[in-house]
């Protein structure tokens, strides 16, 4: 059970990291034009 003392803090850190990613996506406007970001990967530059 000692592993929990590592895993739980790790999960907290991970959660905060994911929150950061969500924030990045929100402020890039990715939730406003949903197709555009998907097509970006097909674009050359």
């Amino acid at each position, binding site marked *: 059970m000692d592993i929990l003392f590592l895993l739980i803090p790790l*999960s907290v850190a991970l959660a905060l990291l994911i929150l950061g990613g969500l924030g990045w996506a929100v402020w890039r*406007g990715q939730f*406003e*034009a949903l197709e*555009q970001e998907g*097509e970006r990967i097909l674009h050359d*530059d």
Partner: protein
Amino acid sequence: MQTAPSLPLLSAGPVPPAAGSATPWAALDEPAEWEGFSRPAAGREGWWESCLAIEGMHCAACALTVESVLRKLPGVDAVQVNGVTAVARLQWQPQATRPSAWMAALRQAGYGALPAGDLLLAGNRQRAQRLMLWRWLVAGFCMMQVMMYAAPAYLAPAGEITPDIRALLGWASWVLTLPVLLFSCWPFFAAALRDVRHLRIGMDVPVALGVLIAFGASTAATFDPASPWGEHASYDSVPMFVFFLLSGRLLEQRLRDRTAGALEALMRRLPDSVERQEADGSFRAVAVRRLVAGDLVRVLPGQAFPADGDVESGESRVDQSLLTGESKPLLRRAGDGVIAGSHNLTSLLLVRVRRVGAQTRYAEIVALMEQASLEKPGLVQLVDRIASPFLAAVLLAAAAAAWWWWPFGQAHAMAVAVSVLIVTCPCALSLATPAAMLAGAGALARRGVLVRKLQALESCAAVDTVIFDKTGTLTEDRMDVVMAHTPAGVNRDEVCGMAGALARHSLHPVSRAIAARFPGVEWVASEVEEVTGRGLRGKVARLNGSDARYLYLGSAFFCRAPVQGRDVPVLQAHLSDGEHYLAGFELDEAMRPDAAQAVAALLKLGIRVQLLSGDTGRAVAQLARRAGIEWCFAECTPEAKLEHVCGLQREGHRVMMVGDGMNDGPSLAVADVSMAMGQAVPLAQAGADFIMTGNRLLTVADVLAQARRTRAVVRQNLLWAALYNATCVPLAILGYMPTWLAGFGMAASSLLVVANSARLARNAGKN
């Protein structure tokens, strides 16, 4: 001067270079111009931020192309293009680049661009929306994670979880609850703080208190398990109800944006720049606010007119639907007027500017709408007055509940108090009326009726009598031939055609009416002479020159022939050839084409329709019969009209008065609800509650139907809000309402009210 009325332009396609000037956008390079659509970039010295409305963008791939085109330019940075709204936002350095460079680059890539200053304002709203979404996502994500940490405490048998693991889980929950408390909850705290500072109780005070108490109790339980708060922290409830509350607000914001869309779409319709003809005859883009009356501007298909003006050359269809409710595109050719804010649809027009800025009809409409949306109807004021004591009572109830439950355990007592604070939903109560009224007014605006006072929508629902004024309201300001009679032995079609051909040469209202009724295309008139106040004379012949006769059209005396017309007290015109009487025409004011239809629609709603007029009895009775109105009152002075309206009101009727807003001011003012035809007068001067911007009388019935629907929705909303609070608050006080359910109930309740109101905006098209 350039006249290119039918350039093959596509409104949605790439825009070709503007002919007539080598660098059409050079005007935008002057600081005075670009400062109009730019602002200093936040946090970057020497950088400016601008918005461009991109034309010719079809898909997401276009957005990326535009983005890369702009990004390649030197001195341009932080480019964001939204494929849905077709708006590009960029930051740039004035030393390194100028607006004309971006425009040229975009044009080369096949896109048109317009500088858009008002989009910077829209950017503020976008920021607010993103912030809201971000708060909501934080609350939602933390809620899920905290729930994971809370699950073991619920699932494991008592004593299975060691205290150190419990403390660890508590700590983890605490860390993830903090962002919810500090960031997601901030709007509630900010509003509550503001209220407290002004010594009043607002909607957010109970919410903020509830969140703080719940978090405080859980924190104490986590970090000091020996404290009386018990060792069982309930973190899961805080992010959960914050999430529910924010979900409600987020959806509410979206719904309201959509409802207000009609008003907003109207308010943001003017372009920012326009192509104006310079002294050398070329066209250059200038900011709209630089326009003055007398300028000649070129308006491409797909663009909005920047000012009121007259078409100088070209022929195109124009969409005025948002301004007048007229849904069909109207044909506009040289000499016709166009109004600012309406759209040019099919081909290029050259327009001579007549009125700019605040004098345009568009500006008047926007000002009226802004004024109306600021006003608070009586019901809203009433609810606002109740809200404060209601909230105070809620706070007291929460305290009383806590006091009552204290002996049974502090933690439980606090949970009950928090539930009471969260579950009460004054929002539903205070939103019930304004949400419905704004939605109703927005829907009416799209149909060409401006609501000047929201209060009127309330009183309108009770109207049982509609009184029409005659001149200018049921009738148009032109004459119409109601009857043409010919003596025996005369070919009716022939003489009417001849009269029409002769009448074409005069602008007198009677001549116009005859010419409009009898086009007389197979006849031509020559040597026409007009004798002012008497009539017309001239030679009328067939197109091939045969059957030529010298004819007289006008008063009986002028015609020099024994009148065989009927002896009736209406306006008449006669036709003769100097010896023989050929035809007589009876004229009357032209009734609006939809008058009879409108009256029928009103009768179907169960409303009494009356006609009041200062005109003679016969004319009024005739018009009333044609329109299908049962009660009519003729030869009314303004005082008599006033007395009539007051008399009806004394009998207990609710009266709506429909007039042209000019001659019937007093009776419009005294009626319960008034409506003016908004064509003749400056809108701001028409002292009516509703103003028809189009000229469709049918909208009168629309307004009444919409007002009734609005009243029904307001009642539903108020009933729901009252029922909800009356059931849930006692349940919470009795301890039957877990905190998460309280949060859910509150969010759902206010959402229901807003969604119910939004139905009004959707139903507007149906009767």
